[in-house]
């Protein structure tokens, strides 16, 4: 689905979301009443310092002014890879955007990521993965690293990696593989109006506590993370 199709299907009562050369912001009218802030990245834009600072400004302005959920729509490249972005401290800009989203989520503005295209690496962390609930649309192609690049790093042939990818979802790109680790909460049905699925989600939002560890355990994609984190947390509490 294109961004326009997604927005039309999610907000049949109207929206004023703009796509300014890949930087997305605006708001949409919810069927259940009120507005949702919409921010995000479109057209497979690599997320750099100039883009991230615009998005964080929109989130901060909205925290001070509005109510309602925040939707983070994502079809990005990875972070912008350039000398200039790193020179200016890209890690701080991406972290800042992520922090603003996480802060909003815990202060009455539940965040929902909507991954409808591509995303990778740092851009993924500071947008879709910084939300409370991450929704995937069929056809989304998240990737931490593509298999040809991974083949270079691991010195394993592409054929071997493709074979291994069938038995373990933990390193292979793709929405289903990420969902198994617990990163993606739910995959929507593109054949059903998105407004129905959005309203269902808003009516039954998961708890604010990060439940991705447990999801990954239940789905088998991350067999140990939940239990290890809980054990360490328990031992930490005993040190009080």
């Amino acid at each position: 689905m294109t961004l326009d199709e997604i927005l039309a299907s999610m907000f049949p009562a109207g929206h004023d979301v703009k796509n300014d050369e890949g930087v997305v912001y605006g708001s949409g009218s919810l069927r259940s009443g009120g507005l949702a802030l919409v921010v995000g990245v479109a057209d497979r834009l690599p997320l750099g310092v100039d883009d991230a600072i615009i998005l964080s400004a929109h989130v901060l302005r909205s925290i001070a002014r509005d109510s309602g959920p925040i939707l983070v729509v994502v079809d990005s490249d990875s972070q912008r890879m350039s000398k200039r972005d790193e020179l200016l401290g890209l890690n701080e800009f991406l972290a800042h955007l992520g922090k603003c989203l996480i802060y909003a989520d815990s202060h009455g503005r539940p965040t929902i990521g909507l991954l409808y295209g591509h995303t990778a690496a740092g851009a993924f962390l500071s947008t879709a993965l910084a939300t409370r609930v991450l929704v995937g649309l069929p056809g989304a192609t998240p990737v931490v690293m593509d298999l040809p690049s991974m083949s270079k790093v691991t010195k394993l042939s592409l054929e071997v990696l493709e074979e291994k990818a069938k038995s373990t979802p933990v390193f292979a790109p793709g929405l289903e593989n990420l969902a198994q680790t617990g990163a993606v909460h739910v995959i929507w049905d593109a054949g059903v109006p998105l407004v129905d699925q959005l309203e269902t989600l808003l009516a039954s939002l998961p708890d604010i506590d990060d439940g991705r560890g447990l999801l990954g355990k239940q789905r088998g994609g991350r067999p140990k993370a939940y239990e290890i984190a809980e054990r360490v947390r328990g031992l930490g509490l005993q040190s009080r």
Partner: protein
Amino acid sequence: MSTTSMQAAIAPAALTSWYEASARTRVRLLLDPESFMEFVGPEKREVSPHLKVFDLPEQFDDGILVGHGSLGGSSVLIAAQEGSFMGGAFGEVHGAKLTGLLRAARDIGSMPVLILFDTGGVRLQEANAGELAIAEIMRAVIEARSAGAKVIGLIGGRAGCYGGGGLIAGCCSALAVSEQGRIAVSGPEVIETNRGVEEFDSRDRALVWRTMGGKHRRLLGAADAFVDDTIQAFRDAALVLLEQVGGFELSTLTNEQVRLEARLRDFGSCADAVDIWTAEGVADAGAVPALPVNQFIAVADHVRRISHDTR
């Protein structure tokens, strides 16, 4: 025991290079003597469940140690990445240990956390689990800080602090960095591979250091404290930062927005770190890479005071 190993065993923190030391040595000499208690240590053999798929050797602590200790007589939680095991990269178990530690800090609400970063980012052999671990850690850092815990990052290891590690560092209350402590998202080789040697020549080490290294990060205001490459210097800096840093609230984020917008406005058209240092008012910017630690700290304190409520 040979003379060398005896010296290593009793080497005080002031004589031990942070860069050269292992994660365990850093923790031992950073904290008050004999105070470290490890959680889920190597004796538990909680190895990565994924490396065997690639026929790669496992490590019993998965390249990170987490636990509790005291610093200057006060309780702290501490995590240290081992940069020599798979580049300190975040895998499922490695990441989960740090997540759990930060959630303990959140639940306690007052005990600070020290994170000794030494990482290239996500461990590619378990890329999805590693990426998600970093997302969980970022959230856990913010939850811990929101609950009142200070989270201090210490950066000066061989692997630097790259990829998602750079994003986690950007979530901390404060960072102390040595000259060797590189902080970035994309590493030099990654930029060169994707954008060409004209964009970034990863073999130009001087370029790497002045673009991503500790001196530039301090002059930019990206790191709060610049320290000598000794464990004692990091310990001293951690104690000072724990006194200085504030809480985490909406004003922290609006201050950070202003701080980062000003950086883009003031330095957004600079082509090189030397141009930024010149624009900041460093008298002889070209000489910065060669400045000894104490002279550099004096220059940095002169041109850029750090306010502790903007990150």
